[in-house]
């Protein structure tokens, strides 16, 4: 009997660990991390990455878990109410509104990407010659990247029906409640994801040298492509910015999810060991799997061309990797396993994004669960439909991801750090985190949360805004062998193409030249009318600058980006109005009157 009880408890413990890992692990672990690391110094990226983990990630996780459980023990589960418990000020609930809009808007495009993963898994199972032959074309057609609205056309090979399936699956699971709805699903899904990941990992690490004609494209070369450090990258603030952003996104810090989840714990429930376990499981899947699978596999089969795919998670995940699986023995089977694993990782994350708004609708308006889920379903369907329709260039998705999935997350993380450090306080924080704790958390963490984290976050936010909001023109080289006739309105001349090729600049076939408002400048435009390069006549020749469009210019030049931003603003305004109304109801109920003042 004692032995059977021990086995059951051991099984329960393992089950809990896998459940903790389930919500932490998502697409970012396998797709975003490798590409971001490769683009920002390879192995050198790990230094700012681990510093961000220790200084920002783990402390902020603990702060969210602590504040959530504290407010939850006082009857508050939604972020507006939680923030009001932490900081007894009328503004607190509106700041909590950020923790509603972030998971909601992210869900609107995350579920779309989730459907792509399932779609690719199904495609590998059913077989598609186009996917193997031309992954880029397949991806473009599958997601409707060439034209807005095309995704709704029947018989066009798009994945629209898959989004419907995944959307309904998400809501059918959440409809019955987090634990009742998905308990059986995830207790199978998480171990399965772990097994699939290990299978693919072993497969990649045992590939050897698949093509004897390319002896450098082997496992060690692939690992080196990912892990060889480029120390110069450490001098670039963008590297530190990218590392912090990756930690945030990966650990779901500043999403409003952890703080909501933790509010359902009791004072006896540990948050210290749970929070650390969640972080460690996430890092295991990110560093030990994502870091050893994605880019090494891409390099083994694509060589240095793999670098072309590191700028985008989508390129890496949905174009480079299919190329890899097309060349790999039994590639279709491994492709199906890989993308199904990504789907499992995504769905366990997307489900957790729905609960914060459900909790608010219940708490703020007295709605029951089914009514709240239904309202949320309609709201999120509107957003999913918007992103799905405006699929050209994935502009709508990119706009949502930037303004909400990057900017607002940083803002919310800063708000939470300030709330914890300055409203909640170091003393209360230290005491609260050790309620029911199974490990000791150093006092240093409290000091860091009050003083170091807010300053670090402010610096990151300022750097992030500087790099991404305004446009930047970066000098590339000076073309000295170009005559005045080589630069004229219209199609790019062969002479100009030859000169730019000397500077290793790629020019699309449909590129055109246009004189800018300033007499000496010429703009080279791509097929969509976006500025690629700026040519400036100087005494020494033509100076060529690469034009990197900032997000402010994107809003001005792209009607879809403009509309997407206004969609986000509308959602935010709507939720803040709801928060305002809920706040009035809470005031009438005297909800917070029994709580001690800040």
């Amino acid at each position, binding site marked *: 009997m004692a032995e059977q*009880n021990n086995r059951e*408890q051991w099984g*329960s*413990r393992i089950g*809990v*660990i*896998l*459940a903790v*890992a*389930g*919500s932490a692990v998502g697409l970012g672990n396998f797709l975003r991390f490798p590409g971001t690391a490769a683009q920002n110094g*390879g*192995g*050198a990226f*790990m230094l700012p990455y*681990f510093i961000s983990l220790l200084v920002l990630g783990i402390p902020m996780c603990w702060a969210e878990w602590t504040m959530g459980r504290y407010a939850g023990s006082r009857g508050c*589960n939604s972020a507006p109410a939680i923030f009001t418990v932490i900081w007894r000020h009328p503004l607190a609930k509106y700041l909590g509104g950020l923790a509603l809009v972030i998971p909601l808007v992210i869900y609107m495009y995350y579920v779309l990407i989730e459907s792509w993963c399932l779609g690719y898994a199904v495609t590998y199972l059913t077989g598609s010659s186009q996917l193997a032959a031309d992954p880029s074309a397949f991806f473009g057609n599958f997601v409707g990247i060439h034209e807005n609205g095309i995704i709704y056309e029947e018989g066009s090979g798009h994945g629209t029906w898959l989004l419907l399936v995944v959307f309904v699956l998400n809501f059918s699971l959440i409809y*019955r*409640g*987090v*634990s009742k709805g*998905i308990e059986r699903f*995830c207790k199978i899904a998480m171990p399965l994801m772990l097994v699939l990941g290990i299978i693919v990992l072993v497969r990649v690490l045992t590939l050897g040298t698949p093509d004897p004609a390319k002896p450098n494209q082997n496992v*060690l070369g692939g*690992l*080196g492509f*990912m*892990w*060889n*450090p480029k120390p110069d990258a450490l001098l670039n603030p963008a590297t530190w910015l990218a590392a912090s952003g990756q930690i945030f996104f990966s650990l779901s810090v500043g999403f409003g999810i952890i703080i909501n*989840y933790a509010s*359902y*714990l009791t004072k*006896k*429930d*540990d948050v210290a*060991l*749970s929070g*650390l*376990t*969640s*972080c*460690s*499981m996430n*890092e*295991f899947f990110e*560093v*030990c799997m994502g*870091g*050893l699978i994605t880019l090494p596999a891409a390099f083994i089969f694509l060589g240095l061309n793999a670098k072309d795919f590191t700028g985008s998670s989508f390129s890496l995940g949905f174009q480079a990797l299919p190329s890899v699986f097309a060349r790999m023995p039994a590639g279709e089977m491994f492709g199906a396993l890989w993308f199904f694993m990504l789907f499992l990782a995504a769905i*366990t994350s997307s489900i957790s994004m729905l609960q914060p708004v*459900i*909790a608010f609708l*219940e708490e703020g308006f007295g709605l*029951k*669960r*089914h*009514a709240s889920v239904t309202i949320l379903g309609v709201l999120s369907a509107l957003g999913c439909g918007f992103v799905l329709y405006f699929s050209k260039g994935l502009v709508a998705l990119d706009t949502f991801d930037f303004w909400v999935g990057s900017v607002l997350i940083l803002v919310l993380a800063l708000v939470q750090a300030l709330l914890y450090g300055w409203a909640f306080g170091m003393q209360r924080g230290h005491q609260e985190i050790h309620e029911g704790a*199974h*490990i000791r958390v150093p006092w240093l963490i409290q000091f860091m949360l009050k003083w170091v984290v807010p300053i670090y976050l402010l610096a990151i936010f300022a750097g992030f805004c500087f790099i991404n909001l305004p446009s930047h023109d970066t000098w590339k080289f000076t073309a000295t062998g170009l005559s005045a006739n080589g630069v004229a309105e219209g199609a790019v001349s062969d002479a100009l193409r030859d000169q730019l090729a000397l500077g290793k600049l790629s020019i699309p076939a449909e590129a055109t030249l246009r004189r800018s408002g300033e007499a000496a400048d010429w703009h080279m435009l791509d097929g969509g009318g976006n500025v690629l390069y700026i040519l400036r006549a100087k005494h020494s020749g033509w100076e060529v600058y690469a034009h990197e469009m900032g997000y402010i210019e994107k809003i001005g030049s792209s009607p879809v980006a403009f509309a997407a931003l206004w969609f986000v603003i509308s959602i935010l305004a709507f939720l803040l109005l709801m928060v305002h109304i809920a706040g009035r109801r809470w005031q009438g109920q005297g909800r917070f009157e029994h709580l001690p003042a800040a």
Partner: protein
Amino acid sequence: MTVGGWIVMTVSVGTVLALAAFCLYRVLTLPPVDVTEHLKGPLDIDTQDTLDAD
């Protein structure tokens, strides 16, 4: 793969594995009476709104 690459990869993977192993060890050695009640994963949460959902 350079020497620096080997060092970075080994230290990174080793650190993460050590952290994960530490957490796993602490969870597995928790007192038996508390384990199912006091260490909950996010997917085990009880939002207490499912019995009266309509």
